[in-house]
């Protein structure tokens, strides 16, 4: 092997090692960043969950005095808070290194959802003048069909943030209450959507969602 070719060989080798080194360095940085971010997320979710529980307990004390105005103020933002929490839970669920933590968080999240949903139902019956729309969205993990449904829900949420409460509930976390509720509302296929006590079966899901929302309350401006 002559010197010219040797030179090219070593140049290419050095180049490859340099690229691989920087690629791994880059990957390491991304991994560390994600890991730190993930740990922060898990802690954050626990804190938020506790926060939510306290707020809901506080809310319960007001139900006793039946003060609809005050209750409404407390309720604003609670749904959003839970919806954002759901997104974080899904992200954490995608990290396979934290399986045990993930299961706990998912269950906690589903309980929070159901708890808030029941409170909302109670609020709607006690304070009909402040009645809120709600969407119960049951979904499995790794679901291709869910992407368009999530787009539709997001779309509705973007249009009328305050008057619609969205409860995204993963259906495969082993909570029997979820099975009972889906059975009660006759949700025989997951992903499934229940809007204001009514289950949607239509093909044109977006139209169906609006129909049930409008029937229930005034349409969004």
């Amino acid at each position: 092997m002559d010197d010219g070719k040797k030179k090219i060989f070593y140049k290419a080798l050095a180049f490859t090692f340099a690229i691989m080194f920087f690629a791994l360095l880059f990957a390491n940085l991304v991994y560390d960043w994600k890991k730190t971010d993930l740990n922060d997320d898990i802690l954050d979710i626990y804190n938020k969950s506790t926060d939510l529980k306290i707020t809901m307990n506080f809310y319960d004390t007001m139900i006793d005095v039946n003060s609809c105005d005050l209750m409404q103020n407390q309720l604003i933002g609670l749904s959003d808070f839970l919806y954002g929490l759901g997104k974080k839970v899904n992200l954490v669920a995608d990290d396979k290194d934290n399986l045990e933590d993930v299961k706990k968080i998912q269950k906690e999240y589903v309980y929070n959802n159901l708890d808030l949903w029941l409170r909302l139902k109670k609020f709607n019956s006690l304070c009909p003048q402040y009645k809120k729309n709600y969407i119960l969205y049951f979904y499995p993990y790794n679901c291709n069909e869910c992407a368009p449904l999530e787009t539709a829900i997001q779309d509705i949420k973007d249009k009328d943030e305050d008057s619609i409460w969205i409860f995204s509930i993963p259906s495969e976390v082993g909570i029997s209450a979820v099975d009972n509720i889906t059975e009660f509302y006759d949700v025989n296929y997951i992903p499934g959507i229940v809007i204001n006590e009514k289950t949607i079966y239509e093909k044109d899901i977006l139209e169906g969602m609006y129909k049930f929302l409008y029937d229930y309350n005034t349409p969004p401006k």
Partner: protein
Amino acid sequence: MYVDYILLFSIGILLFFVALYIFAYFEFKGKKDPLPKKKYGLSIVVPIWNEEDTIVETLKHLIEMKKNYCGDFEVIVVDDNSTDKSYSLATDFAKKYGFIGVIKKKGQKGKSESLNEATQIAKYELLGCVDADAFPEKRSLDYILGYFDDKSVGAVTTKMVVKNPKKLVEWFQHIEYIFSNFLLTAYGGLDSIYVTKGPLSIYRKNLLKKIGGFYSQDITPTEDMEITFRIRQAGYKIKSSKLAKVSTRVMPSWKKLFWQRIRWNRGSLINFAKYRKMAFDPQFGFFSIVMIPIVSITISMLAVIIYYLITNFYSFLSNSITKIYWYIYLKIVPNPFVAVQKYFEVNPMYVLSSLFFIIIVAFILWIVAYIVGFYESKEKVTYKHIIILLLTPIIYTPAQIFFWASAIILQFTKYKTRWR
């Protein structure tokens, strides 16, 4: 997960390969074709079998070549018992031009036997092989023959471009050939050419006789690659001309392309396995110390990449198709921003992050290689070229991987394929 790391390693090897070619290209791109110090006698062999669509044009190109060449020159057309008008068309030319001769073989024995038969009756010291659907540029010989002044050169090969691509499949091959012209310059610089291309390559006749001529299809499906290994084994060099160029017809359908690539890829598997003993033998220089091992490793790496693509890319593809179906079924307009955001959010893989960096580097190298390929092929870049180039990694590269996977399976199952 371990497959991810093997994939990363495989991509590292491929990256080294591409870097090697690009550095080699820039090191040797300035080298010019040497002018011949003497007039060489040249016999051009054109093996034909049912080539009535192209033989006339090929012979016209060879006549133009003869006009531009002042040395002894003859053309031997070897008809392998065509059932169309190929023989009579070639005979018409032979009657008109004294330097063209036509012979008809008795049995159908394939291309290798046609070339060997012509080698026996060829009058001159150099023997050129031209496919019946190849059209060499008229001044090609001026650029090729100078290499034979060096007694250690056994064969010289040339660059190829596709003649008038029309269909999509032809355009993909056109782009592929442009890339291969960049590779040829790099291989030439590294003294690592491992195939003397069928459309136009020139050999020393006595060397061909000495090493036993071209082997039949029973031994190798790619006789042009196989003979290159034997020429190297005999201690001769293979060179590539910088300026000589030949246009050629390519496979007009995916089906024909599939079977051609099965033959080529199986040929590569067979030849690299057959001459594995040349690997690391210092007497064959860079070719044996670096190229044979790396090409062999790359072929193995293909298996990993194929596995990875099947398990990851195609599941990604099927998921995307299902999602699109549901969007249409549910009449919902997708939100691309959410999709992109979600993709990056839910892929915290370590390997994927490394690949992301490597893919950016590979993309830059890929662009450089194609720019160089266009320059080497003397092809003007048109909007069609750019579109096909962008479609290549989406359509043609997966197709090539499929061809490789099929070739590996057919080779292991000993399925027999023939040239025609």
